Each structure stands twice: as structure tokens, then as C-alpha cells.
């Protein structure tokens, strides 16, 4: 039994913690928000230099060839730093290319994604209806893409996107250079301006189809994203818990530290409980990705649901523990609060993932 990351993997985490602490403190995330930048170049550079961007990309395509466990470790640190990067999106994009890309497609994009020269994302949601097959109206015709994707995380920073579309009425995935003529990015005011989403509109946009993909391919890529984002969520939740804990140790009311009151102590214990129960789910998800286990759809959904709840709870109770100051713009609490909801919505709400859990359980437990 070795339900843990390896020492090397942990060392990568520690290295990233130090580097992000320097390059992407909360002030950097705030700067991204204030200056309306689509992401933090500083944090991205840290990831590139640590080899985290190509962790799961084979050396043949310029990657490190380590694996998804390293990706999860990095995501956890990005969450802890509350960094503004398209890390999970880019991982989803490169994973789709690795699975279904032709040699040509791989050679074109993977080295750039591995080095950080390009940012990737995936665009599945449209018509305000999540990713379900019946909602897809984007079509591929003669190598050109027509349609619009909505609420695409990292749409404003990505260079390349894997997009779900119909070709001859059948769902598939294709890859689009977002700098092409025919691609328009539509910015929006987002709940979390440090992780902006946007619309992608395609009109005569050149695209290249990924072979052997179908509707289930999108779900497969979502499962990968769910696990990696769960690590980001848990990292952020832990940071919020630490903020609340630290404040409870210094803030006094009625003559003692507020952290001496059970009202606060038990609240923090509950935050911790949610984080630790989510953490083991995320670990299990990481294991499932790394071994390509049949449990992945279940594990991904479990990680997604638990991590979303952990960050929701940690972010909102962190504001509560801070009291008035936690409600101000100047304090960092709201960065976590807003991130919590943005991540709860990205990849679809828990309502949908719980249904995925239930379908898996029914399948495994046929009476």
C-alpha cells in the first residue's frame, strides 16, 4: 500500500511552492485582476521552468515524460498560490492531442504546449446547456469550423483549443489555432476576473479533426480536467483555511484570540475535514489517471464533487472568520471566494457530476 506521492513528486511540489511564493504571491493574482490581464505570465514562467507544463508530455514531443501525478502536484501548488494560469486547460488540451492527434497534429502543438510557448484549452460548452451532445450546434464543414462556444475557461489566453463539434451530424473533437482568421474571442465580465472565461466564435475558421473521437471523448477529457482542477481547488482551500487559522490566532475579541472560541475552532475543524476527505478523493483520481483505471469516471466525479465542496466551504468561511475586513476589496479573502465559484462552474456544476457518480454506481452494482 503506497497511497501517496513519491519523494521526487513531493520535491517538485516544494520547489514549485517556493518559486510560486516568489513569482506569484497573492499580489500578482491581484495585479492580473486590476490590470485585466488574461493570466499571470510570472506564474506560467515558473511552471515552464520547472518542467511542469510538459510533465505528462513524452520527451519525443519536448515534454518531461514524467506523468499525470506530477501534473496533479503542480496543480495543487497553483491552487495554494491562487495563481492565474491555464494549467488545467492546457493539460486537457495536450491530453486530447496525445490521445487522438495525428503525428502532424502532435508535432505542431505538443512541443509548444510542453515548453509553455503555447497555451491550450478545451471548448465544449454551448447554448447555455453544458456539454451534452444535443446542445452542440457548432459544425465542421470541409475543414472549417462554424459556431460558438460559451464560457470557455482561458479563452482569452489560449493559443490553441480542442473544440467539440458535429461533422455530418456526428460529434467529434477538432483542434483550432485561435490566432486563425475566422476565430473571434468575446470577453465577458467574469465572477473571477483572475481566471477569465470568454466565448469563442468560429466563422470559416480552419480546424483539424482529431481522429476516432466522439461525444465520449469530451467527457473523457473533462474527467482528466476534473481531477487536475480538484488539486487546484484543494490547494486553494487549504490556503484559505490557513489564512483563517492565522487570523484566528491574532485577532482578539472579548479579551481572547477568536481562535479560542469553539464557534471558530469547530468551524475551522469542519473546513479541515472537508479538505482532507476531498484530498483522498483527488489522490484516488490521480491514481486512476496515472493507471488509466476503469474507475476514472467515478474517481474524477468524486474528486470534483468533494473538492468543489471543500473550496466552497473554505472560501466562504474564511470570509466569515475575518469578519468585516474579509468583505473588503483590499483584503485577499474575496479572491478565494470568487475563485471558488468560478471553479465550481468551470467543467460544469456538481449537480451534473453527482449524476455521473450515480450512473457509475448503478453500473457497478446491478441488482
Amino acid at each position, binding site marked *: 500500500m503506497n497511497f501517496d506521492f513519491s519523494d521526487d513528486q513531493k520535491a517538485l511540489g516544494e520547489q514549485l511552492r517556493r518559486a510560486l511564493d516568489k513569482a506569484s504571491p497573492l499580489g500578482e493574482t491581484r495585479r492580473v485582476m486590476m490590470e485585466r490581464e488574461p493570466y499571470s505570465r510570472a506564474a506560467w514562467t515558473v511552471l515552464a521552468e520547472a518542467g511542469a507544463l510538459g510533465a505528462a508530455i513524452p520527451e519525443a514531443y519536448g515534454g518531461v515524460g514524467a506523468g499525470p501525478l506530477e501534473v496533479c502536484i503542480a496543480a495543487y501548488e497553483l491552487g495554494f498560490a491562487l495563481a492565474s494560469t491555464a494549467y488545467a486547460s492546457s493539460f486537457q488540451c495536450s491530453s486530447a492531442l496525445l490521445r487522438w492527434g495525428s503525428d502532424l497534429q502532435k508535432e505542431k502543438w505538443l512541443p509548444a504546449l510542453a515548453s509553455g510557448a503555447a497555451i491550450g484549452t478545451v471548448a465544449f460548452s454551448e447554448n447555455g446547456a453544458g456539454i451534452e451532445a444535443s446542445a452542440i450546434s457548432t459544425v465542421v464543414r470541409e475543414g472549417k469550423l462554424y459556431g460558438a462556444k460559451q464560457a470557455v475557461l482561458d479563452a482569452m489566453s489560449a493559443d490553441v483549443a480542442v473544440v467539440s463539434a458535429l461533422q455530418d451530424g456526428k460529434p467529434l473533437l477538432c483542434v483550432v489555432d485561435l490566432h486563425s482568421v475566422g476565430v473571434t474571442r468575446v470577453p465577458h465580465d467574469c465572477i473571477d476576473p483572475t481566471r477569465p472565461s470568454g466565448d469563442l466564435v468560429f466563422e470559416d475558421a480552419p480546424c483539424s479533426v482529431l481522429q476516432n473521437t466522439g461525444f465520449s471523448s469530451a467527457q473523457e477529457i473533462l474527467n482528466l480536467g476534473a481531477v487536475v482542477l480538484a488539486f487546484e481547488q484543494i490547494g486553494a482551500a487549504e490556503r484559505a483555511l490557513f489564512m483563517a487559522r492565522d487570523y484566528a490566532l491574532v485577532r482578539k475579541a*472579548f479579551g*481572547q484570540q477568536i481562535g479560542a472560541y469553539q*464557534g471558530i475552532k469547530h468551524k475551522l475543524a469542519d473546513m479541515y475535514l472537508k479538505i482532507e476527505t476531498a484530498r483522498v478523493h483527488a489522490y484516488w483520481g490521480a491514481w486512476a489517471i496515472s493507471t488509466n483505471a476503469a474507475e476514472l469516471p467515478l474517481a474524477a466525479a468524486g474528486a470534483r464533487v468533494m473538492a468543489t465542496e471543500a473550496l466552497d466551504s473554505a472560501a466562504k468561511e474564511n470570509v*466569515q472568520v475575518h469578519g*468585516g475586513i474579509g468583505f473588503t476589496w483590499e483584503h485577499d479573502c474575496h479572491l478565494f471566494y470568487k475563485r471558488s465559484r468560478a471553479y465550481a*462552474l468551470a467543467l460544469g456544476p456538481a449537480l451534473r457530476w453527482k449524476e455521473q457518480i450515480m450512473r457509475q454506481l448503478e453500473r457497478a452494482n446491478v441488482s
Partner: protein
Amino acid sequence: MDFSDSPEERVYREKVHAWLSANASPAVAEQDLSVVADADNVPRAKEWQARKWAAGYAALTIAKEYGGGGEAPIKQVIYEQEEAKFDVARGTLDIGLGICIPTVVVWGSDAQRDRYVKKALSGEEVWCQLFSEPSGGSDLAALRTRAVRDGERWIVNGQKVWTSGAHFADYGLLLARTDPAAPKHKGITAFIVNMKAAGVEVRPIRTMAGSAEFNEVFFSDVSIPDSDRLGPPGQGWQVGLSTLMHERMKAGKGFGLAGWKKMLDIARNARIDGAPALKDSRVRERIADNWAQEQALRLLSFRAQTALSQGGIPGPEQSISKLVDGTLAQQAAAFMLDLVGEPAVYAAGSDSPLRSVYSSWMWAAATRIAGGSDEILRNVIAERVLGLPTDARPDKNTPFNEL
């Protein structure tokens, strides 16, 4: 058991309604609460207050000799229920007229009452309340703003926070520490402070919602004549407590956060996994649950109104309502965003149909903190209603300057 007015109440309601009909247009929609603390709203609010003053509706529960209506609190409730049906500037002067001025009436000297009450009631002068401090929070009596006596005046230094309307107020009701050697509750004195005086600086506080309804107020050697001291030195805590009683004599109203109707609207248009959200029994249950809680708050306000109608004092209905409302609205807003799914990330857009849900999601967080945090209110219920022991308060009897 019935929900109708007593005969006397009905007559009063008709009278008020008739006057309002003659003086204002019917409301077309719920007033946007965000304008309440907006300086742009002040002229309209003053103008409306002047008209109420002329008609005898300026402050119904204040005694007639000071320019009020001399009515029972239930009349105030009825007036406000009727006024809410009209398109008038509400809310902006509430802190002054509902909290500060009644306190001046109770604690002020004749000279203070003559000088301040009528000018406020007539809408000429606007007031704000200067109690909260950065280091205080729930522990209001931990305030550190100092007032040092210097002959016939007091020199004030320190900082207040979360002061609504400080940027347009003419006067403020201030609590300051005058005897640091006394235990924390005993060394405080209340003052009336001229907000235009030298040394008073008002800075807006930007909230996580991006707006600036509140202020910090800094005092640097601000001079207050002793004639503007309110109540005896060292009695400031009692002055502060008496404001709470004025707060309590209301029937309570919601915080205007998005509730079950909005949820039902959203559910009518949303889809989950390809099926209409309104057919998803999770969504149906959530709407039913939200309705049940919101309806409870509405019914609790009827209970408070019943107490007032019978000449009594409402119970803990307001504490219960605030405790329920904050948590409920925060969860409900998150659920509504989830219901829409991915595109709900655009809720922050000023033209988004979800903008009110997004606001509600943030302001609910504030509701759980402001005016007694969830934790403080649970303590209050446990101690005052259920009779459980107070928390240990190691600082209670220690001189403030030794804490």
C-alpha cells in the same frame, strides 16, 4: 388569529395611504437598494423628508414636543409598509432618523434636542453613526478612539469604520474612550460630532462587490465642545445600548437577497443533462426549501408586528431572521449559479440576467457579518433566550489600558 389591521390601525393605514397617494407616484419596481448610501440620492431623500415633516410623518415614534408624531411603534410599521408601495427616496436617512436622533431625544440636554432634532426631522441635516472600529468588530466595547478633555472641549483622535453615509452626513453620533483606566465598558463617552469639522477625514471602503457604500472615518485632533457631549462621561456604553432598543422596535424586513422566485425563474429556463431543470427533483426540493425558509421570515415579521400591535416589544425575531437569511441566501445564490452551469461565470456582467444573483451571493456574505455575526447572534440567542452561561470574558473588569 387574523392578519388584518385593528380598526384603529386600518383608519391610520387609510390616512397614510391617502396622503402618500397625493404626494408620490406608485412604485414601479423594488427600489434598488444600492442607491441608499449614494450621495446622489441625498437631495431627493431630503426633499421627501421635508415633505413628510410638513405633513407630520417625519418621525412617527418620537414625541410630539420634539417634532415627532408621538405614535406607537406599530404606526411606524404601517407607515413604512404603505410608503414601500410608492416611488420615494427611502433608506438614506434611516440611520439618522431611526437610530441617532431617537438617542439624542433620550440622552440629550434640552439645548441639544432643540439644536439637532428638528433639523434632522425636517431633512435639513443628515446624521451617521460612528461606533464600529477596525480593532473592535463584534467586540464593540473594545473601541480605541480617544477623546481627551481639554477645558470646555474634547480632542478626538482615532478611526471608525463601516460608517454608512459618512461622506454626506452633517453630524455623527460618536462613541469614544475617555477613561482608559476604567474597565472597557465603563470608560466610554458619547458625543455629537460635526462631520465638517477640521480633522475629520472620510475615505470610502471598497467592498468585495466592487462598490463603496461604506466609509472609514479618521479623526485627527478633532475638537468637540463639551456641550456636544451626549450623556454623562463614562456612560457612552449605555448610550450605545439604547440605540439597540430603537432597532428592536421594528417588525423586521428582509435584506432583498435573491430567493425562491428567482430560483424558479432560472429553473424554468435551465436544463440539466439535457432535461428541463424544473423536472429535476433536486431543483424542486431546493425551491421548496427556500420558500419554506423565506416564508418563515415573513411570518416572523408578522409575529413582531403582532407584538408591536399589542403594545409589546418584539422577541428575538430579528436575530433569527438575520441568522437564517444570510446563510440561506448565500447557498441559494451559489445554487442558482450552478443551475445555469458554465455560462453563469458571466454573472458579474452589468447586463447579465444573473447580476442580481451574483450580488446576492456576495452581499449574503456581508449579511452574515454585519450587525452581529452569525456566531455572535447564536451566542445572544443561547444566552439571552435560552439562559445559557456567557462566554468567559477575561477582559471584562480589567482597566482598558492594561488589556
